[in-house]
């Protein structure tokens, strides 16, 4: 199977639908990326940075306790959350930041939703000595304060975006606007496997380290292939990075999990493939499946996880959904919290809310597949960042009282 785009397209999806002002920057990126992805020194530098700075390889863990508890297929977890800054996002951020340096760029801009890509980008920029500005929806700034705090600690400027729905898609718009204002000293580090060509190819390539490590590590547990692999799908970077290595192994069922949110009505979810309201569109530089109304306006989305709260999906994922190579399902907010609790309690890990979507689906799939089968889940990030959201969702006075007392302590200067 062809894993790269053909002239920027995956079937009918992808492309470079951009205003003239961004054309020179994208052409330059295209040329540079296609050169450096085959450059021995660049590849070596990328891999040594992944090893020494990111902390790769991340472990593959057999979730023995949950497997026993469920009594179904064996569940293995790829722990991307153990990478520096807590999610797979750093693989791509480091790759693009290194490329930016090679291209002689001095300034980095990026969008972020949950803040994981922002934190990863800010971290990579701190490490590589690049100036960094992160665009983040005002609502996300408010609900993901800890990540804003760390981005600023890394020396990045965080600019709240007040337009539109004030979330991830608006942060992308603002980053594109800023890119069109800047001179050619600026590089835009896009955080998922979407946007105009060559981003979907480039982000996939940088993230494909995940699946390659899995192929190697699973030999420590079993000899043949897994029966299924499961990953959550926001824009699609962790899933495509996890799946790419296995696309040709057709006996492996690849399962993408979307955000089911709080219900199936428009505005209540972010299920582009499995929900109502998804259809082909051209938005933010690429053609793919978007949640939109009959007039072509993007619909509002909802997910308990900011990282999956986006109306579009990467073009390669849309293509692999059409061709049925990837099967899609969804997990609702409440199932996500339950999965998080289960894996925390029995495996001692704190998965990110995004990744907990994959875990919620995996629980069902493990039961369905039954004993003797093997499934591998990509736990794309760790959930420390979600403490405020999870504590709130679980209710109770303890956390509320803690916050109240914390305010007293801060104001009292204690």
């Amino acid at each position, binding site marked *: 199977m062809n894993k790269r785009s053909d002239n920027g397209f995956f079937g009918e999806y992808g*492309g*470079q*639908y*951009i*205003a*003239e*002002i961004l*054309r*020179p*920057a994208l052409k330059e990126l295209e040329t540079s990326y296609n050169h450096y992805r085959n450059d021995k020194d660049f590849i070596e530098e990328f891999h040594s940075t992944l090893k020494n700075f990111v902390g790769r390889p991340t472990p593959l863990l057999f979730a023995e306790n949950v497997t026993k508890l469920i009594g179904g297929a064996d569940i293995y977890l790829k722990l991307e959350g153990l990478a520096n800054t807590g999610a797979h996002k750093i693989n791509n951020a480091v790759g693009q930041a290194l490329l930016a340096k090679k291209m002689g760029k001095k300034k980095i801009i990026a969008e972020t939703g949950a803040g994981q890509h922002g934190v990863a980008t800010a971290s990579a920029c701190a490490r590589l000595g690049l100036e960094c500005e992160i665009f983040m929806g005002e609502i996300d700034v408010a609900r993901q304060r800890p990540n804003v705090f760390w981005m600023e600690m890394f020396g990045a400027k965080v600019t709240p975006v007040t*337009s*539109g729905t004030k979330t991830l*898609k*608006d942060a*992308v*718009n*603002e980053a*594109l*606007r800023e890119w*069109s*204002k*800047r*001179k050619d000293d600026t590089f835009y580090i896009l955080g998922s496997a979407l946007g105009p060509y060559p981003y979907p190819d480039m982000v996939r390539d940088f993230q494909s380290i995940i699946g390659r490590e899995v192929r190697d590590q699973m030999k420590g547990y079993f000899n043949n292939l897994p029966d299924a692999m499961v990953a959550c799908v926001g824009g699609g970077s962790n899933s495509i990075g996890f799946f790419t290595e296995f696309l040709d192994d057709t006996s492996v069922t690849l399962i993408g999990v979307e955000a089911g949110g709080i219900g199936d009505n428009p505005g209540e979810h972010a299920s582009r493939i499995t929900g109502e309201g998804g*259809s*082909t*569109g*051209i*938005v*933010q*530089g690429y*053609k793919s499946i*978007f949640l*939109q109304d*009959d*007039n*072509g*306006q*993007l619909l509002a989305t909802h997910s308990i996880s900011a990282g999956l709260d986006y109306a579009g999906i990467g073009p390669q994922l849309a293509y692999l959904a059409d061709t049925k190579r990837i099967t899609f399902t969804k997990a609702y907010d409440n199932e996500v919290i339950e999965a998080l609790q289960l894996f925390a309690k029995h495996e001692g890990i704190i998965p990110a809310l995004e990744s907990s979507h994959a875990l919620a689906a995996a629980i069902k799939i493990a039961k369905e597949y039954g004993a003797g089968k093997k499934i591998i889940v990509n736990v794309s990030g760790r959930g420390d960042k979600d403490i405020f959201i999870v504590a709130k969702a679980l209710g109770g006075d303890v956390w509320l009282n803690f916050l109240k007392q914390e305010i007293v302590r801060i104001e009292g200067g204690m």
Partner: protein
Amino acid sequence: MNTLLKNLEAGINNNDCMLMGHVIAGFPDVKTSIEAAKGICSGGASFLEVQFPFSDPNADGPVIENACYTSIENGFTVEDGFKIVRELSSSTKTAIIIMTYANIVFKYGVQSFVKKAKECGASALIVPDLPLDHDEGLMHYATENDMGVILIATPGCDGKRIKDLSEKSFGMLYTVARRGTTGNKTELNAETDEWIQLVKNNSTKPIALGFGIQSKEQTDKLKGVVPIVIAGSYFVTVISKLKQNENVQSELEKASKALF
């Protein structure tokens, strides 16, 4: 003959400095946007862009962006947009140009959109994120319907690209004076002069210069330099500041005349 080509020819022959105005369809509501547009037309605009709002207008700055959100929130539909175009093209001499984003056209169906635009009397289309090599057949269908697509040249284009764009562009070459999005005043300085000169040297069609035009002082400087000036955010700002009981049409007519 296509109204845009007719108006263009007349203006060029008279050596006029022509105006291209801009309204957001359905901002603040359908009726007001029609009256405002008529004011801009009677104020002397040879061309008028009617922007069909899109939820994610990432080539636009805050003024137009916010107007688009208001229109969508007030229930704007693409059919409303066509209704506005029909009304304007039948009641004014101004050439009506539909400006919008790729997804609005794509979702409607590119061929159907162009046909409908023609039927409503539009002269041309501007869709910034359907560029030459990714236009989904837009130019083909437009040409088939005795209309055209106006292409946009922006700083960063080299001479060859400018030539290419101008050859394929309909009637004129829409030229953006500076980097960035719509809104913000453009300083007409040495850098813009140099850019305009590059476009003039390479374009095979008359130049329409836009982005950040908002005063007579600027248009005075541009007289004799370019045959067409575009004012977008300027008009949208005037419309957004209209007070109740004000006569929309005459206020916009004044605003239009104030530019010259």
